[in-house]
Each structure stands twice: as C-alpha cells, then as structure tokens.
C-alpha cells in the first residue's frame, strides 16, 4: 500500500468516525446540553451533575427546586399548585452550598423570569469552607458557554452508552421522567426504625462540651454570604425559600451525646441572623415538628425522610409555618435547645 493512500485512509477514517460520534452525541444530546428532548425521543434522567445544567438551559420554568437529597423527593406539581408556578427540580446529591449556589446562579443567568428558588439549608454543611466542593471531577465543560471544551462531551467514550441508552429507553416504551419523578428515591427505600438502625448506631457519650470558635463563625459567615446571600442580593426579584431539613431524632440524639447540640444550634442561629438581613430570603425550620422527627417510620436513615415529609414541608412553607423572622428566631432556637437537651432518648435502647 502506498504511504499516501495509507495516510488518507487512516486520517480520513479516523476523522470520519470522530465526527460521526460527535455529531450523533450532539444530535441526541443525552445530557440535554444543546437542546431539550429531541422529537419523540425519551430521556432517562439519571445523571444529575451532567444533566441538570442542560435542564436549566433548555427547559421553561419560573421556579427552581434545588438542594441536596433532602429535596429530591419534592413534587414540583405540588409546588406549582401552591405557588402557581411552572417549576423545575434540579438536585445534587451530597452537594455543598457552593455547588448549589453555582447552579442557582447559572439558572438565573439562563432565565430572567424566575420568581422562586427553593433550596435546602443542610445543617451539616453550614460550617464548610465557602469554596469547598464535595467531589472532584465535575463536568465543568458543561457548565460554561465555551464551545471548544465541549469536546470532552462530544468525544467521550463513556457518553456513547448514554446516547444509546436514550434510544433503548425510548424503544422500551419509557417516557422522560416528570419533575415529580426526577431524582426521587423515596419509592425505592425502606422506612422505619429497623432500617434506620441498620445504618445508624448510638454514639459514645462525650464528656467535653463542643463549642464553636471564632474561626467557625467566620467560616459559616463566609459560606452563607458567598453562597446564598450574595446571589439573593444580586437577584432582588427572586424570592429564596430556604429550610433546615428536619433530620430524625437519631440525629438529635447524636448531637446531644457528642455534646454538639448547643454548637450546632448556635451555628444555625448565626446563619439565620445573617440570612434574615436580606429581604428576599425566607428561612424555615421544622426542628420543632417532633411528631415527624421522633417517628422513625418517616425515615430511611438518621437524616433522610420520605416524600410525604417533603409534601408537608411544602405546605408548611406555603402557609408560613416554621418561618423564622427577626422577631421569633431567638425564641425558636431557645425552645429547640431546651426541648432536645431535656428529651428522653431512651428509644435508642433497641
């Protein structure tokens, strides 16, 4: 074979294959980066960190439900019927405040008619450094408008099965999940005391009281200001609904036994003080809903509650129940501190 012909064959075929892969990926677009669902194709939504940005870019909505796994069971249909919106749900399992804020910011850039943002205020992530990411390897090439780095998406062998999966999913008769269904895990989990105790065990009683130092307060302030308040100030027309997820009684038991109850509540109170300075932020806490919290039938582990709790949270927030204001927040935290420090945790004796 002549070298010139060999070169043409190798380079021509290689370029053709790569163009084909890139072209089909862009056309079907399993991560919805370029467009919404194509024609009659149905899309499995299983890769939130790869698909959420595309959802925010290419779908219509005027409200956003975001946050961690604490928000994944929310039903946008319930939210919409209460607030009269057309909302979208884009959650990020285990995300830090920073990651959620970056996504909220992008959503508000993509659409200028967003009225509400609902997000969780995960207590266990308050005292994180403001620039902390929970994971490595985010697909940042999907999160910008740089067309050149899209090559990481278009020429990616691990995306090929995702592209094929869209076709197979459609052929199997499935439909693209609704926002109610997207990310929701409640129906796949077992709930109850036995299940919670499978993954949670009683912590050893600590002698020394854990207290927050000045650097903890500084870190909380920076985290809240940079990753929540700043975005709210820059988007005055958007109302931010933030809530502390109602973790189970096991979580409170751990706080009490490890002598962290006062420190945790101080952290939350400090964050609330900062947040209430901003007019378009509304903060909710449901730590006093003992009927929910102490009933482990509502939980699959120490933290995660079932979808019916999410439904309660929506209606509580809509009705203003559990809302912290400048007038009531101090009394609220005092009440919570007193309640859990005196609570009888003997239930943990199996």
């Amino acid at each position, binding site marked *: 074979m002549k070298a010139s012909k060999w070169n043409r064959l190798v380079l021509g075929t*290689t370029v053709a294959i790569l163009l084909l892969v890139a072209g089909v990926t862009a056309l079907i677009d399993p991560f919805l980066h370029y467009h919404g669902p194509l024609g009659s194709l149905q899309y499995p939504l299983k890769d939130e960190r790869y698909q959420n940005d595309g959802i925010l870019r290419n779908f219509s909505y005027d409200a956003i439900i975001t946050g961690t796994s604490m928000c994944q069971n929310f039903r946008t249909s319930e939210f919409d019927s209460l607030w009269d919106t057309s909302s979208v749900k884009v959650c990020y399992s285990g995300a830090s405040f920073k990651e959620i804020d970056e996504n909220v910011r992008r959503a508000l850039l993509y659409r200028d008619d967003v009225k509400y943002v609902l997000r969780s205020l995960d207590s266990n992530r308050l005292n994180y450094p403001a620039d902390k990411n929970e*994971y490595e390897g985010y697909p940042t090439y999907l999160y910008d408008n740089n067309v050149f780095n899209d090559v990481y998406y278009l020429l*990616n062998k*691990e995306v090929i099965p995702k592209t094929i999966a869209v076709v197979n999913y459609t052929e199997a008769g499935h439909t693209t999940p609704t926002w109610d269904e997207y990310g929701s895990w409640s129906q796949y989990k077992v709930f109850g005391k036995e299940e919670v105790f499978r993954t949670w065990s009683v912590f050893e009683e600590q002698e020394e009281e854990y207290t927050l130092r000045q650097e903890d307060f500084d870190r909380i302030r920076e985290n809240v200001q940079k990753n929540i308040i700043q975005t709210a100030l820059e988007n005055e027309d958007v109302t931010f609904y933030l809530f502390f997820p109602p973790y189970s009684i096991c979580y409170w038991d751990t706080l009490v036994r490890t002598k962290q109850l006062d420190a945790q509540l101080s952290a939350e109170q400090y964050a609330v003080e900062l947040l209430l300075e901003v007019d378009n932020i509304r903060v909710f806490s449901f730590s006093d809903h003992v009927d929910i919290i102490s009933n482990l039938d509502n939980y699959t582990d120490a933290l995660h509650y079932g979808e019916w709790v999410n439904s309660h949270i929506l209606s509580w927030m809509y009705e203003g129940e559990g809302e912290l204001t400048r007038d009531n927040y101090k009394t609220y935290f005092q009440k919570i501190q007193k309640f859990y420090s005196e609570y009888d945790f003997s239930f943990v004796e199996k």
Partner: protein
Amino acid sequence: MLFNSYIFILFFLPLTLILYYGLNYKGHTKLAKIALILMSVWFYAYFHWSYVFVLAASVLINYTFVRGMEKRHDSPASCRFILILGITVNLGIIFYYKYLDFLLGNINRGFGTSFPLLNVLMPLGISFFTFQQISYLVDSYRGETREYDFTDYALFVTFFPQLVAGPIVTHEEMMPQFSNPERKKFSQEEMARGIWLFSVGLFKKVILADTLGAGADWGFGVPESLSCTDTIIVSLLYTFQIYFDFSGYCDMACGIAAMFHLKLPINFNSPYKAVSIADFWKRWHMSLTRFLTKYVYIPLGGNRRGKGRTLVNIFLVFLISGLWHGADWTFVLWGVLHGIAQILYRIFAKIWDRVPRILAWAVTFSFVNLTWIIFRAGSLEDSVLMLQNIFGGKPGGVSDGLLQCFNIIEFTYLEEHIGFLGEIVGKIPTIHVWMFLAVSFGVVLLGRNCYEKKFLPTPVKAWGCIVMLTWAVLSLSGLSRFLYFNF
C-alpha cells in the same frame, strides 16, 4: 500541553504541521524553524505560563556560555572557566527548583531547625532540558560542536516532542537534521510512520497505562490495608503502568518527530525482556544512561582506574540517577539498590551469564518490580510496609477497591450485552485484573519494539491504527461517578 489531550491532537499538532511545512514549502526555512520554536514555547507554556521564563533564561544563558567558549577557543583556561561556570549555573538552577526544599526539609528534620521551605513550582522537564544543555556545553568545550546560530540552538532545546520527557538528545543527532534541506520536505512515508508510532504510543498511554495506573494509585494510597496478594498485584500494576507510560510517551515523541521528518534517538527497547540489571539499563531510558555514561561515568574515570574505582563510579552514577528521578529518599534508595545490583552483576557477571535465561529474567524482573515499589511509594515507610505485606504474607484476597478500578466502561458494556461474559465475571470477580496483567505481560515480553521494526504501510496496520487512534481519543475524557450512598 500533554500529547494525550484533545487540544494537542485535534488542534496544536495539525496546526504546527501545517505551519512548519507551509513555511518550508514557500522557502521560508528560517521562519519555519522560528514557528516551530514559538509553537514549542506555547506547548510548554500551556502547563504553566511561568515555566516559559525559566526555559527562556536557561536557553539564553547557555547559548551565551557556548558563544563565549567559541569566541575564546584559543584560550583553554577561559573555556574551562566558562564550562565550569556554565555547569554550575545549570546545576544551580535545577538545584533551586528541584532539590533545595528537599535539602532544607532534611536539615530541619535532622537538626531541629525551621528553615522555611520555598515551595517553588518546579518547571516541567527541567531535568531534561538542563541535562541536554550541559551535554551541549561539554561537547562545545571539547570542540565537538559547530557554530550553530541561535535559532538552531533554541530549536535543539525546545523542540516540543522531546522537551518535557526526553529523549535527552545530543547536538550531533539533531542539528544536522535541522539544516538538512531534504528533511524540510513533507514525506508521506515518514508521516505514515509517525502516525503509526503516535497511535501505538497514545494507545499504550491512554488505554493501558492509565487503567493500570488507577489500580496502582489506589493501592499505593492505602498500603496499610493491602493484603499480600493485593500488594503483589499493585506492584505489578505499577511496573506495567510506568512501562506503558514511558514507552507510550517515547513512541509518541518519536512519532511526532517523524511527522516533522525528523528522527529522535531510540530511548526504550523492551526493557522488561532484560536478563540482568546491566541489560535492563541498556534498554530503559537509554538516552539518560548514555548521558550518565558519557558525562559522569567516563569523566570519573570509568573503568580505567582499577576495579575498585570502577565499582565506586558505577555506584555514583546510579546514586545520581536516583536523585535525577526525584528529590526524595525513595528515589535515592531506588538508585542505590540499582547501583548495588549493577555492582554485583559487574563482580559476578561470568557466573550470572551462565544462569539459565528464564531464571535470570525472572530474578531481574522481580528485582525491578520490587524496586519500583520503593520508587513509587509515598514515603520510605510506605515502601517498607508494602514489602512487609509481600514477604510477611499478609493474609487476605484481592480488595474490592482494587477490583473497582478495573470496572471500565468497555468491560461493563460487553458484560451487559453478552450474557456469558457477565456470568464469567460473576464467578471470577478478579478476572479484569488478571486480563490486564496477562495482556501487559504478553505485550512487554512478546511484542517487538515498534521503533526498530521497519514500518510498512499495510491495510492491516491502517485499520489497527484507526482502531487505536479512535479508541484512545474517545478515552481522553470520561465521566465521574458521584457516589453518595445511592441517593
């Protein structure tokens, strides 16, 4: 910029080739060289812009020394002074960037002092371009170089295929090629050979080395939790990772040079086929061995000053080789062990050469494999721990963490779609690891060095090349897994 990156393969390399051949075709040969230098600088700056200043300073300073010696060629004392000054400056630069913190750290540990560490960003490939220029200074002092202009000299140092990881080329290998008018013409044969070499190298790096490396990284990150079996597997994974990484790099470097109708010297010649440590060092990183022989071992007296001095010289060369590879006691110990092995071979060569070849190979390979543990370990303590795991026979099978490193998309897809493959994996969960190790052994022991083999552009090679190239390019990116307890 890495060879195994989209920007290099899809943009930088084609653009540089078009620029180079376009300018040469129009008769602007000088401009073509300048374009190649500028593109090489961009290639280098892509790692970190500040590196460029170190590279530029190094080239300018060394060229000034060279011209100084050329101008004072009738004054040996002046030339000698310039040479010593030049070598001192080069070693000073490399010492500052690579070894000063190591020295300060050891002083602080040894004497309880608290000298602050500089934590300077070490320019990539500094060991390569510094050694290359030291060799040029020495050759210039010896009168072995001609008066090359600055463009040729700058291209000799910065030529991007060999800039960051070698081979350490000499002036007589490269300079005549830069001025050869025939080599400025596009050659279909050399382009085909270059594409083939590049594809083979890219495949070795991306598909083999990086997958093996994931397992090795996992194992070397948790040495305390490895069983004996784990540790042996992890050590082999690293042994093959470094092989395919370096071999792949050398193939790509030679392939790219061939695309520019230039020839780089062979740097890697099936080293794991070696039947003695001396044989291994004739095959592994050959241009470094050549440098250390010519510019360290021989000036120290080589084998001309008696047997005892010869052995000392060998030891010193390997000590330097260890330090050259990195500023850590792990590298020093690795160099020392190879030095001792080389000395033992020198003493017992006649007996060793009568040992059956298969036994000699097994001992050599095992020694190389075990010493790579020390080379790769995060600390001497970690390497001791891993050697204890092996020789203490620490109980336990193959860890799940290690197996997960080999759950690559190709396996997953095949096993999902071909039923019996999934069943086999269900019965033998470790099969992926064994497959990678078996393929690695097969390639390093049975494969022939593709650089030395005459390249014939056959249809089989063309389709092999297409498969390797597309597979590797599509593997430059992957998807991350964000595991959060199934939520």
